[in-house]
């Protein structure tokens, strides 16, 4: 069963995503709303990972060898300036979209397996991921015109 592999992947990618949000928070302290919201979202991603943990353990016993290397891109260093902020938020958007679709994949399997516990976790975490994406999109839309048209440096 490949679900175990996928759960592992999801678990790792949540860790990567939370780190990335924290990194952006740290790198953009001059944008207090970005700093603050990224921290709040990071701690919610930690909570997602925590909810998933027991399920990863449960399926982990049945883990098969990976069909192929599944991994998420790591977030590298934050950038500076208006365009830098925009790029960093876009990177977060990409990472967050990856966990979003991974939750969807896992959710489908949970339904197939009639795993009620996993289904509940997926539904709560999908909502939370939608919130991340919505915030990122809102903030990106706000920043884009200024960064691309008038920002210097």
């Amino acid at each position: 069963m490949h679900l175990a592999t996928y759960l592992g992947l999801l678990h790792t990618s949540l860790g990567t995503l939370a780190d990335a949000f924290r990194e952006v928070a740290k790198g953009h302290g001059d944008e207090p709303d970005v700093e603050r919201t990224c921290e709040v979202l990071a701690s919610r991603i930690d909570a997602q990972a925590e909810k998933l943990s027991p399920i990863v353990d449960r399926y982990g016993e049945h883990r098969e060898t990976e069909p192929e290397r599944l991994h998420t891109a790591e977030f590298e260093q934050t950038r500076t300036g208006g365009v830098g902020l925009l790029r960093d938020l876009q990177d977060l958007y990409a990472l967050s979209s990856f966990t979003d679709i991974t939750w969807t994949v896992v959710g489908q399997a949970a339904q197939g397996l009639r795993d009620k516990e996993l289904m509940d976790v997926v539904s709560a975490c999908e909502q939370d991921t939608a919130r991340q994406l919505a915030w990122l999109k809102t903030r990106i839309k706000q920043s884009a015109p200024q960064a691309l048209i008038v920002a210097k440096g």
Partner: protein
Amino acid sequence: MDRWVQSACVLCSNGCGCDIAVKDGRIVGVRGRADDIVNRGRLGPKGLHGSWQAHGKDRLTTPLIRRNGELRETDWDTAMTTIVRRSQDLLAESGPLSHGFYTSGQLFLEEYYTLGVIGKAGLGTPHMDGNTRLCTATAAAALKETFGSDGQPACHADIDLCDALFLFGHNMAATQTVMWARVLDRVKGPGRPRLVVVDPRRTPTAEAADVHLAPLPGTNLALLNGLVRAVIEHGWLDREYVDRHTLGFEELKATVEPYTPEHVAGICRISPADLMRAAEIFGTSERVLSTVLQGFYQSHQATAASCQVNNLHLLRGQIGGPGSGVLQMNGQPTAQNTRECGADGDLPGFRNWDNPEHVEELARLWNVDPLTIPHWAPPTHAMQIWRYAEQGSIRFLWISATNPAVSLPELGRIREILRREDLFVVAQDAFRTETTELADVVLPAALWGEKQGTFTNLSRVVHLSEQAVAPPAGARSDLDIFLDYAHRMGFRDRDGDPLIKWKDAEGAFDAWRECSRGRPCDYSELSYERLRGGSGIPWGGERLYADGVFPTDADYCEDYGHDLLTGASTTPADYRARRPDGRAFLKAAEYTPAQEQPDDEYPFLCTTGRSVYHFHTRTKTSRAPELQKAAPDPWVELSAGDATGLGLSDGDVVRVESARGFVEVPVRIGRCRDGVVFLPFHYGFQAANELTPTEWDPVSKQPLFKISTVRIRRV
């Protein structure tokens, strides 16, 4: 005394109807208008003394321009030509996003509307906001999130009719004295309503309360989640009303579920019994009126906490009836108009920037290309405007009728921004202020009483303020200044006619009536003629939402709303999918601890606030001898316990210091709860905002003046 001239007071959001006494072409006093529904003849100390005594003192009467680093006197033509040249150069070089406008909550409706049209249809910049961002942005946001549009549901008469009055973060005795007098009529009279006050300080308002809840600064949302939970838990709700008129009950219930009295008491450091008493008063009184102000608006999770007040009323079906409703208060006298007319960046007439049909409507009205009107993202809020200026992408900043060098958070940073070489700053004011001293061009403006216009108070009551006297020679009304700029810039409509077609206040008002027609804030029935004599008149009738129908219809609403935790916008498609169709939203969020938490280095929580004797940064009130004498200097308030712990007594001078700056002020003992200190924010010297953080609420974008951590030592 030669004559009385009709007006209303512009020193707080109550907007008391008054008459101005004129003798020999000068203002010599004011009196309350007995037939006004707001104040019934009363005036408070600020209105009586502060509204007119500054008029003859220290006025700016000639434009100033910076040459070789110094502000020098110049003439109007030179000043305006300089402004227009810079504006046009920047437009040619980098377009309208290089322009920002930072206005006020103290101008008149006509001035805001004119400025709004200049910004949106003339220049096409989304960078326009008022200092109302600092005072009432959360009121507007909470009303939009819950009811679909701005607009205060309740009215002043509800004070006379309620059985319970809740003041959430509202020290009414200091901020709206005449409103408070109306409360005292009830509290000291027969059939006393029960009074609940939420405030971390034991203010005179709190002393009058049956229940005083003093949560730690930054924990309002936990408290409110606890109150909502208790009301649901005890079944003090009107299930039928909730089912018919609201959306989101199950989510609300789930969100507040963890906030048991004990849990809340632990977070807020209050007694669980007091919490339950307050909940019971809310849950069992026949008619409840709530007001909300800066203690909530300028604090952590401001919009979420303020929405919970709306939710309490919706749960009980207590909205729009006599004596039952909510006033998401305004702070400044004309803040409501900044919001209505689009001078805070929103589209005029409570139109929705995310609704293409609303943008089209404005484009038709103004006869401009809809693409000119900025609507690709939410309007830029003040804190972001300052950030863009700090980063050098806004290079033209026009400040009118406000003093950000005292009123914004983290003043050291604000001064640095204002001093930037690449930022051209226009400051328009009646007096020299901390801000004008840092401007490139200073324009002398007329004051209240020296110009004509209307404004709308905290309960939607519109007053006409007539011109009583001429401004001092050399000063011009803000409206005339904006019109002159528009004229010199040559803003045109699609037919090549002047974009702005009015030439005076009444013409602007009539244009606004058309703009507001059919919108929630519909002024089309009002006119200068109707507003003359008698009382001020509310738009929308005495109360809103008596029928339980809210302006949430997707085609009509002012905003599609936000996630209260992060401020993420709800998309038009998601909003429509919920089919609100006139139902109100029961929105909620979990409590999260504020970013600044006391530690060994900065062990105290500092909150800032108001004194009864002053308004804003004291440009007027410090020039009124009675007010100035009553509160000439800033101070810091400490609890008796904390003072003893630090070995301090009354009058000792201490340094209060945060990570951002410090003030040195004498100590006053009393009023605060242990661990919390208070600084008045009015003073330009030893200014409280040296200490406050650059941080804001995710939804309303209102800065968090009420929470910074500080240390204290004797000097």
